[in-house]
């Protein structure tokens, strides 16, 4: 029931709808009391052979009125209560989306996409069920149940009612015991289903390996083992689930037995008419539904509560990307002075950067190289303000980067990431992602610079070609070049290429770099790369390892230092040398 308290903010806001919905339910319940009463009236009249035309007509008129009123009232509450629950669904979904949009890197490291999706789909559904089906079931079973009990007492006998209702208390015991077991069993079933999902996914993605190794049969056997586990888990769930209704039937049966005995004796002793007993049993039958409903109510509430907590846990996560009230809206430009004494990731105590210092003049190009995991990406991360907590400072122009308005700051950086993601729209809108109003000629110019224009001309619908998950699948190199074009079109003051041309051959990479340099005469560029030829022409190069700068200089200077840079360069160039010699011979 706690979930109702937690959702009270919503119920308060929609109190009119809920109140009128519940009121309609109440009226429906009253309407429901009438037919058994009329049945009883008619039975008694028939029994006493006193049926007259007027009697029949008036009773039937009441019944007709009740039928139509009941229909309209049912329509009304469905609209009010279910309608409100979808308002809640929409609002929660919207809140989650807005929240996702402003969360920071730490958040996205912690939560996986599939997990976040599950929150925004299954969990929202479960909470909506509480606000719709849950409220309805609670109100309806209480109202129907109580009104039937009151009717039984008022129209027939309070004593008999009390006796007949006692066995129903067992339902609470059953709901508690069985409910918990079912809950656990369903959790296990869901787990097994996830396993099947993962297994299938893995086999489909790794199909080439499986085929090449000729392990189709073994893979099938493995899958079937998962299927068997799944059946076993579901069997338990279904067995428990199948016990719910029979147990309710038994408990209701006890009420009937009590009625048969005490009601029957009362009729024999003539302290009750046979018509009254018929009414009473008819009311009792009406009680069956609310009793069955209570079982499902607990289920809905429990699931809803768990889901609501999960959603709130997400919404409570704070983003470090908060705007300081008097942040500088002006566009950052000028020299970069990167001076970090120390930085560690929020989830890891060990230092990711120690004493990294470099200056980059406006219009210059900086190359960052070094072994994987050495700290290249961390430097870029801090420049991109993924994290704002470090000792030291990064100054762009005259100001600490943290003083800029984040939006204005990022707006002037063009970042091309290592891994690329295209949105499922046409290639034009992917390129002009940062500025959706850009003209076709701007898009074409950016494509030209990124060496992409020719590729696009070869696509079925040119710039209108749908890409992303649904459309034409682009090669790794093409995706990287789309990302470059996207960054170019945003006309950044600072362009950051984070190993972003790894899938493009060295020659094309060089062409793109040259064209970028031409187009951006005053633009500052930072290139992180594993291929040293990517940074050869940079104004300065830093070699980063173990979170610190181990070498710093131009290409020529670094070669003469005979350190990591020189070693790696020789290693990468070795094959080129051999080829060179062979060339001379040929």
């Amino acid at each position, binding site marked *: 029931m706690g979930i109702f308290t937690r959702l009270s903010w919503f119920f308060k806001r929609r109190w009119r709808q809920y109140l009128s919905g519940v009121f309609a339910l109440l009226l429906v319940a009253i309407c429901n009391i009438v037919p058994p009463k009329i049945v009883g009236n008619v039975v008694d009249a028939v029994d006493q052979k006193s049926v007259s035309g007027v009697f029949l007509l008036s009773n039937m008129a009441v019944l007709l009125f009740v039928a139509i009123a009941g229909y309209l009232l049912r329509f009304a509450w469905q609209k009010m209560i279910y309608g409100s629950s979808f308002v809640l669904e929409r609002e929660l979904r919207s809140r989650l989306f807005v929240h996702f949009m402003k969360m920071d890197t730490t958040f996205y490291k912690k939560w996986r996409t599939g997990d976040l999706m599950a929150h925004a789909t299954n969990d929202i559904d479960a909470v909506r069920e509480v606000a719709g089906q849950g409220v309805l079931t609670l109100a309806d079973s209480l109202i129907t149940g109580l009104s039937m009990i009151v009717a039984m007492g008022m129209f027939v006998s309070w004593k008999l009612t009390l006796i007949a209702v006692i066995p129903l208390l067992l339902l609470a015991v059953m709901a508690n015991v069985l409910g918990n077991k079912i809950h656990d069993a369903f959790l296990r079933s869901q787990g097994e289903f996830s396993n099947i999902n993962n297994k299938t996914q893995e086999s489909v993605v790794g199909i080439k390996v499986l085929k090449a190794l000729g392990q189709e049969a073994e893979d099938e056997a493995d899958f079937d083992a998962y299927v068997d586990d799944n059946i076993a888990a579901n069997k338990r769930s279904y067995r428990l689930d199948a016990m719910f209704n029979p147990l309710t039937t038994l408990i209701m049966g006890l009420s009937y037995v009590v009625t048969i005995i005490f009601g029957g004796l009362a009729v024999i002793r003539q302290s009750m008419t046979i018509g009254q007993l018929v009414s009473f049993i008819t009311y009792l039958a009406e009680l069956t539904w609310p009793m069955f409903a209570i079982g499902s109510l607990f289920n809905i509430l429990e699931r809803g509560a768990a889901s609501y907590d999960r959603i709130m846990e997400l919404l409570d996560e704070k983003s470090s990307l908060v705007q300081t009230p008097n942040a500088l809206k002006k566009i950052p430009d000028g020299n970069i002075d990167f001076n970090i004494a120390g930085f560690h990731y929020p989830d890891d105590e060990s230092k990711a950067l120690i004493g990294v210092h470099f200056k980059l003049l406006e219009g210059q190009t900086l190359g960052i190289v070094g072994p994987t995991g050495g700290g290249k990406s961390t430097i870029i991360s801090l420049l991109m303000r993924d994290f704002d907590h470090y000792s030291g400072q990064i100054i762009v122009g005259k100001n600490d980067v943290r003083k800029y308005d984040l939006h204005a700051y990022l707006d002037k950086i063009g970042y091309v990431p290592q891994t690329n*993601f295209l949105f499922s729209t046409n290639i034009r809108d992917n390129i002009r992602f940062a500025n959706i109003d850009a003209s076709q000629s701007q898009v074409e110019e950016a494509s030209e610079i990124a060496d992409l224009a020719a590729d696009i001309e070869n696509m079925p619908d040119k710039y209108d070609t749908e890409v992303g998950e649904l459309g034409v699948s682009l090669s790794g190199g093409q995706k990287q070049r789309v990302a470059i074009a996207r960054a170019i079109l945003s006309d950044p003051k600072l362009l950051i290429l984070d190993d972003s041309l790894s899938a493009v051959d060295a020659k094309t990479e060089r062409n793109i770099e040259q064209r970028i340099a031409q187009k951006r005469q005053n633009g500052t560029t930072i290139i992180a790369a594993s291929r040293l030829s990517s940074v050869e022409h940079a104004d300065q190069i830093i070699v980063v390892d173990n979170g610190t700068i181990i070498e710093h200089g131009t290409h020529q200077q670094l070669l003469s230092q005979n350190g990591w840079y020189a070693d790696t360069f020789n290693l990468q160039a070795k094959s080129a040398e051999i080829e060179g010699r062979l060339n001379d*011979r040929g």
Partner: protein
Amino acid sequence: MTVAKEKANKTEVQSLTRKQQVTILKRLFHYAKFFKVQFFTAIVFAILLSIINVLLPRMLQYYMDHFLVHQSTGVRVVLIFATVYFIGTIIKAIVQFVQNFAFSMGAERTLEKIRSSLFHKLHTLGMEYFDKTPEGSIVSRVTNDTKTLYDFWNLFLTILVAAFAMVSAFIAMFSVSKVLALATAAFIFALYFVVWLYQHLSSKIYQKLREYLSQINTKLNESLMGISIIQQFGQQRRMTKEFEEKNRAYFGMRNKMINVNSFLLYPTISLMFTLAELVSLSGFGIQSMNTVVAAGVIYAFISYQQNFFNPLSDVMNYMSYFQDGLVAGYRIMKLFDDQTLAPRQHPGAQAKVTAGKIEFQHVTFSYVPGQPILKDISFVVQPGETVALVGHTGSGKSSIINVLLRFYEFGEGKILIDDQDIRDFSMKELRQKLGLVVQEPYLFYGDITKNIRMYDDSISDERVEQAAKFVDADNFIQQLSGKYHAKVVERGSSFSTGQRQLISFARTIVKDPKVLILDEATANIDPQTEQTITRGLTKMRSDRTTIAIAHRLSTIQDADQILVLNKGKIVERGNHDELIRNKGMYYELYQLQSMDQ
């Protein structure tokens, strides 16, 4: 689910003819046949249940009409009757349980059978199918669509139970009063009209609803995957706006759906029931003015009437599952019918690969008829030799490997291994003796040993270790906590590309193939790891026939033979020095690449 696919589904459903629907149902029922015991039990018990549901009120009626009207009836009789009634209730509870559980298990086993068959079917399909079908949709067929069938089967049980209950309730009513029973049945026609109206109004709304929901989820998924790009380019507001539009559209459609549901579904059944009650009460009332009518009779008739209408609301609630089930069934059957089968071997093929000689004789191949990818390819690789395939993207290099590994069926010509037709070898033999090293190494969930041995339990731990040592993977494995039993997470994402590559080398080499097929990695690996990998590859190649696709010419200079492909033809062949001297295409490619370095 993606938007485009969802759109396709929409047209799929709309174009599903009656005949197709029947075919889908028939084929689904075929799988149910395997579990006829469960279904049969469930149906028999469902019939029993509806009989009990008729009998219990009948008993009460008898009790009232025969005992309660006499004041002479003693407490003993009342108690006996109560006991009998309770025994009846116990039987009803047991029958309810058996019916419910048996049907659940029947439905469960049927869907798991379909699921398993689908998975088996997948493994009969050729690479072509996997290359052209998005993986998400394949997974969805096997897991979600089969899951949908559970509710679908439940709909059938509900309909079946409802039918029995209604028929038996009708018979019971008929035995009490013929005229009133027929009058009650007349309401069914009214209901039929309501259902027709509901189907008519709801199916469009329902389809739209599903479409909007999938759009919402696609948008959400995409925004999460591309969050860094959205934030970096400051497009949060635009994305939120687009999302809100879809959210609003969905909400609007939801409201329409609620209107139709509340207007036509559950409230209608209650209305019908009360109206039917009105008719029968009037009937009994008028009747009683002329003849004697027993009180118990009225009670019994009214409760039969309730039994007649009650199951209908269940059926109405399950209505929406029908369409879902049909769509799921259609997609499943489409996968079952897919003819993109993996190439077949000759029946009874059992030739053995001994030396590892490979020969292509005038082989042609195309992915799309009329657009040949390989034209008249002929070459011979002697046992132990290395042949390198060189050429631009799309020149046909990968296709040669695809047909040699029987991922795709080739067209004309012959492929011979040890001078025997490739179709004369069993698939198992080919897989055992032809070892492929793929461009993008893929690791499976589990541990390192499992990933090297894969499912072949005949490979001992020692051999796994030997293989790893051979390709220099042992060094880094020894440093892992858990060593050979170190955990491998989904897709091996905790390992670097280089490490994954080494593990996949070990996986290939542990089978000791005669022929090695290398699709050289273009991935970006740091130079140190690359050296280790090159060393591993060199060792693997020694004493084995090797066919390698090379992207960097520097790595294949020692090949015995280099085939230069262009537009599906071999345009040059020879060793490195010969080709350089030729000053042809290879020379040009070579020049280009050395300039880059």
